[in-house]
């Protein structure tokens, strides 16, 4: 469902000159699978996901989401994706019901369908009690549920999740992870970035390790273990990063 080939992104920075944020990435994500991008801050995870979400353009390479090209058919790509990141906010002065209605409408969904889907999502995410309370009165956990509801109201086949558990308490983070698993079970293709090893271990069917814009390894957890002298993802991660730095 997601095909990335030779993806490169170069930023121009006044002080640093040309900065290669993402360098020649290549990976595929399948339907019903969670593909994890694992890497420290500044590795290029957010840049990659922003390109997938059509927010920024790639410098080089080809990216297709459910068959649509992110550069040539951005509008079609947007129909296929639900986007959620730790940085995406909500409108404080709207209620969850109004928020979801607005996002349904700006994604071109008819009101009747939005209402039906809202009822389902609010029921599944246990949001019915606070659906008419303004966002600024909600707890962090409630807000994160709403963010999820907002990103799936148009029932997209692909979910792009950029560190969705950052800043959440342990209970809310666990709830979010459970929902992500349930979306995989519904057959959605999920691309998930994180720097938390435990999350990647528990959640991802495929893991790609990114460091300084380069993809230094990818495979299932078992495959990564097989190619390493360690058994623990964190140790594998550091081993790969050290190898990468020594090569440079």
């Amino acid at each position, binding site marked *: 469902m997601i095909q990335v080939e030779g993806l490169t992104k170069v930023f121009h920075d006044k002080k640093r000159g040309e900065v290669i944020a993402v360098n020649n990435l290549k990976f595929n994500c399948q339907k019903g699978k969670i593909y994890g991008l694992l890497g420290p801050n500044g590795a290029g995870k957010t840049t990659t996901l*922003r390109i997938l979400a059509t*927010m920024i353009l790639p410098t080089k390479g080809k990216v297709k989401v459910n068959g649509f090209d992110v550069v040539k058919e951005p509008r079609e790509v947007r129909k296929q994706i639900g986007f959620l990141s730790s*940085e995406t906010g909500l409108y404080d002065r*709207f209620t969850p019901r109004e928020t979801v209605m*607005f996002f349904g409408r700006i994604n071109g969904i008819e009101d009747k369908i939005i209402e039906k889907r809202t009822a389902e999502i609010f029921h599944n995410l246990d949001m019915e009690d606070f659906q008419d309370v303004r966002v600024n009165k909600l707890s962090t956990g409630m807000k994160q549920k709403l963010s999820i509801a907002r990103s799936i109201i148009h029932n997209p086949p692909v979910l792009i999740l950029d560190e969705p558990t950052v800043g959440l308490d342990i209970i809310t983070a666990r709830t979010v992870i459970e929902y992500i698993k349930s979306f995989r079970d519904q057959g959605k293709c999920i691309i998930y970035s994180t720097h938390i090893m435990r999350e990647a271990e528990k959640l991802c069917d495929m893991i790609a390790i990114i460091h300084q814009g380069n993809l230094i390894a990818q495979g299932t957890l078992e495959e990564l273990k097989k190619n390493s002298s360690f058994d623990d993802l964190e140790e594998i991660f550091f081993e790969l990063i050290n190898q990468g730095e020594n090569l440079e």
Partner: protein
Amino acid sequence: MSWKNIKLIFTKELVGTIRDKRTIIAMIIIPLIFYPLLFTGIGYFNKVGSMKSEEAASKIMIYGAEFAPKLVKHLQDYEKIEVLTIEDDSLIKLQNGDIQAVLAIPPDFKYKIEQGGPGKFILKYDTTEAKSRIAKQRINQVIEKYKGEILLQRLSHLDLKEEFLTPLILQEENIATAEKITGSFLAVLLPYLIIILIFAGAMHTAVDITAGEKERGTIATLLVSQISRLEIVLGKCFAVMLISFTSMVLGLIGLTLAFLSGASIAGGVEGVQFGISINTVFLLFLVLFPLVGLASAVLVMVGIFARNIREASSYITPIYMLTIFLGIISISQGIELTSKMFLVPVLNSSFVFKELLIGKIYWDHILTTFSANMVIAGFALLGATRLFTKEEVLFRS
């Protein structure tokens, strides 16, 4: 481009703004409640103050009263003047406000009057004290009356009639219509107020729905939707235009109420008739519309460019100052208008408002102003949309 999408963004911004307490305070409470209350309060205290000063009799001391008995008699007869016995420290008493004026009449006063010369005498008062100013006015009235009597006496000695002193009579006839009188009264301040209210009204919303969205991280959620960047910018701009226009109207209503309530308490407003015709109102709107659009588009563009609300405010401050500056220029009298001046945004609207308010309709000025402001607003809109597609602007931190 879909109007349905533009309307979705427009409605979202409008609802969000109306639900913001700060908007309600700035748009409704301050102009419609605070201004009238403030002016009513000022009017009330002014009235109470002046009534007290008017009611009290003016206490005065006269040195050399014996040299001008007739004048002193007139002063004593005046109901609201109390002539006190002279004391040595009269000047200190005047400074302390115990008395309101001191009159000093020299010994040769009576002689000079009788000889047909000017009788000179000195009035000491304190211009910073309201009561002392009133005392001066009252004394002047008495002196004028006495002066009239002396003049009549002198004329009769010379066997002349009173008309001798008025060789010319000029009868003035003002042909200005009520509309023009009202207009010229309004034309001084109104254009300036309109411009300031439009920009002030647009500022908060424009920044909140652009730089504010960036700061709160909601912008990304719009960018991955089916709505195009142009539709987002237009929806936001139209919302700012409506808010800006509404706050300008409410601001003007508030100031009118404030003026009327303040003035009516302080003594009433006479002679002010609101005689603006429907045509003038229509033309005012014709000039107003592109100005509101221009203000909104420029402020939205700046808001999109800024990283956060704080940065946006610092960019907008000089723009606001420039607007005030242009407004002040437009208030200044005696500027010779050239047709090129109507190409300068903001200033041009102000000049056309002025012309319309005094009943002058110059179509070339109106059309130049309308077109110049529309073109600049259009460029600002294009600029805002272009900025909205630039990833280095949207995602810089």
